[in-house]
């Protein structure tokens, strides 16, 4: 799971008659940030910096910054390659090298990238990480993924085991376990590998920045409660979450990005505008949806277009919470640095149990006044997908609003069937219309 920051779908890029491209400041800022990070990684060795890789859910960016690591997020690398139509051959390269066709394609895209000469999505070198910070949060595959990278390409793994919220809450023993691991295993290992001594005050400073950015991100996402929504809470939100879910949470640059973004979105809201799409302003909000599950990256634009062409806006999504759930009040807390890092990891979306996931979706359906739920079930991802059909049934039962199910994959283009998805969506929108007619709402 991750975010496509950096390779944003440029507005108007796919229209037949070229229009003036409206790029808002936040987009440029975001693109610059992401490209800068790839450049940082490419030049890390020559600048004597060590490289850390870590996953988006349970991403301990502020902590890694305390040790001056350049930071690589392997899911983001995979999806960036997918957006650039490169992931198919990377996946196949990994399969030729012995990986099963059945397993998560993020893993295979990552392995394929190393096998094909360690070049990152922007074309600059992406060297092998010195440390694989295995924040084992909400996904079993993470563990095997970094074991595989270590096995094939070297580097040291550092495990942070984040227990699952099986009974829907963070028990003190769970938090203590994570904090203890940070103190006794993770921090000493990062000190040793980086040669930098840990300074908790430095961590506090970063966490202060995180808090500010989180505040603004939540404000942005919650503008979708308005009608019309000024944002798309799924296709658009994957850009918004880019910096905060990756190598920038805790940096002043991220704080600035979210400040600018918020101002822009609030201006759209005041102007009564809908979301910005790759083809300019949204044609007009007809359907408001909540989406569960990650997007497909290989056909991201086509996929998005299927929604806005029909007048659909996603007002809230669970995917935009994979790298942290902030909209129910959680913030990183400089007064309790390690504890709040632990709580952050424990609270990531895929670390929530089923009842919590269902409650969250139902709450979104109400708070964002959605017409229904759409599940995009991802072949790669057991963590998200196993049991989604029950989520769908329960949400339908509890809200009385229609739900639909489509299937695709993250970065393997072989599993995207545009015709199937379009048909499903069309019948789904028809179902919503019929429901409205039956209820006398037009």
């Amino acid at each position, binding site marked *: 799971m991750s975010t496509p920051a950096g390779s944003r779908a440029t507005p108007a890029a796919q229209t037949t008659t070229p229009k003036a491209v409206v790029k808002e400041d936040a987009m440029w800022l975001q693109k610059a940030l992401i490209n800068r990070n790839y450049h940082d990684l490419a030049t890390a060795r020559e600048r004597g910096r060590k490289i850390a890789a870590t996953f988006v859910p349970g991403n301990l960016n502020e902590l890694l910054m305390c040790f001056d690591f350049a930071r690589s997020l392997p899911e983001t690398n995979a999806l960036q390659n997918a957006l650039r139509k490169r992931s198919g051959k990377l996946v196949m390269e990994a399969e030729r*090298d*012995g*990986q*099963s066709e*059945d*397993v*998560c394609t993020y*893993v295979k895209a990552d392995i394929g990238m190393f096998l094909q000469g360690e070049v990152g999505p922007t074309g600059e070198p992406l060297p092998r990480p010195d440390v694989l910070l*295995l924040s*084992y949060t909400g*996904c*079993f*595959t993470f*563990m*095997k*993924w970094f*074991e*595989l990278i*270590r*096995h094939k390409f*070297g580097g040291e*793994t550092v*495990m942070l*085991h984040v*227990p*699952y919220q*099986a*009974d829907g809450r963070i028990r003190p*023993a*769970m938090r*203590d*376990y994570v904090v*203890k*691991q940070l103190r*006794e*295993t993770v921090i000493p290992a990062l000190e040793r590998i980086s040669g930098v001594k840990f300074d908790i005050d430095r961590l506090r400073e970063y966490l202060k920045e995180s808090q500010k950015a989180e505040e603004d991100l939540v404000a942005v996402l919650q503008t979708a409660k308005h009608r019309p929504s000024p944002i798309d809470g799924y296709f658009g939100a994957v850009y918004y979450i880019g910096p905060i879910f990756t190598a920038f949470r805790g940096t002043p640059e991220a704080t600035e990005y979210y400040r600018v973004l918020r101002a822009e979105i609030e201006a759209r809201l005041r102007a009564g505008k809908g979301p910005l799409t790759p083809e300019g302003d949204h044609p007009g909000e007809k359907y408001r949806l909540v989406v569960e599950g990650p997007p497909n990256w290989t056909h991201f634009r086509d996929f998005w277009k299927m929604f806005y062409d029909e007048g659909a806006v996603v007002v809230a999504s669970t995917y935009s919470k994979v790298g942290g759930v902030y909209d129910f009040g959680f913030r990183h807390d400089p007064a309790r640095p390690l504890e709040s890092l632990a709580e952050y990891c424990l609270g990531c979306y895929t670390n929530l*149990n*089923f*009842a919590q*996931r*269902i409650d969250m979706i139902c709450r979104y359906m109400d708070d964002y006044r959605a017409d229904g739920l759409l599940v995009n*079930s991802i*072949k790669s991802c*057991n*963590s998200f*997908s*196993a*049991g*989604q*059909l*029950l989520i769908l049934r*329960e949400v339908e039962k509890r809200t009385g609003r229609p739900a639909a199910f489509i*299937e695709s994959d993250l970065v393997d283009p072989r599993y995207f069937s545009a015709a199937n998805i379009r048909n499903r969506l069309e019948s789904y929108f028809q179902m919503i219309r019929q429901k409205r007619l039956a209820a006398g709402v037009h």
Partner: protein
Amino acid sequence: MRLADIVARCEALFEDLEFRAVREWKAAHPGAKAIGYMPIYVPREIVHAAGMLPVGLFGGGDQLEVIQGDAYYQSYICRIPRSTLELGLTRRLDCLDGMLFPSICDVIRNLSGMWQILFPDKYVKYFDVPQNYDDAVGGAFYRHELASLRDDLARLAGRPVSDDDLRGSIAAYNENRRAVRDLYAFRAARPWQAPTAEVYLVLRAGCVLPVEEHTRLVRDYLAAAEATPRPKRDNARVVLTGAFCEQPPLALIKSIERAGCYIVDDDFVLVQRWLVEDVPESGDPLDALARAFLHRSTQTSSRYDEKREDKGRTLLAQVKSRGAEGVIFAAPSFCDPALLERPMLQDVLARHGIPYTAFKYAENTGQMAPIREQAGTFADSIKLWTAA
């Protein structure tokens, strides 16, 4: 007891998807509870100490028609969760008062939440195990998990579970572990006397029988297998790995053997061999279980290997200590743990010059011919290799 009778009894238990043995045990122990558990490991000692029957569930096998279960899963998810749900939704698991879902993969993790929703009257616990093996860190967390399981079950039983109860249960399971270790050693020494299709059934019987009875059964089988001479064949000796969760059909195990392979070690029903040594029967019993888990347990793909050089240690030891000539990777389709682990293990084997072959199965795989052929070719190539 005659060998044929023992095997027939195990087979009947294996085929019984109504769990009559569990129902009979409950009828004979009024008020006592039965607790189901899924692969890969749960501390059955704690269930036993609460006066309950731990019941191992390994899906529905190839005899169960899965209808309702399929409605909950996409085609790209393995089969064991859907057949397990089918068992639950068709009320075959009504004899169970609770379910434990160990931390093995995201499919079983999510199934724990589905179970909470679909069976709200049952006790359901997702049983987390530490991936940090330091006593003061992962050990402390795990001890807490063990204590919370003990307290939950005590509440369910309506009586406390004392340290003495736990020590008694540890002793009962130590006996069982010894018997199962002997069974594995016997099969490795004389695989023609203890075919894996039988050994497997004996293990599976331990999923529904009380531990004391299962230990006797293993001992009876060993005595009977020893006393019944059978012809020794010129088979290749192989370790089978990857089948720790969703199970291959019995016919598949038989096919491998018929194709000319003696399976001399495997990872079937790992719960019975998870702890590789006796657990101390004195001192704090939860500490003893926690330490055994952290330091005296087997290696499998649902666990983290701290160092690169740890990868494949157990598999290599199996090959070496059992005198195996090759490895068969048999993994359920769509099983992330087994399939992500496989290339690493294969690489370790390749570096040690150990031949291997690999295939996938589902618990309801019906076509045995391709697997028989593949196993046959593998056995032949091993023999050619050793002859050369």
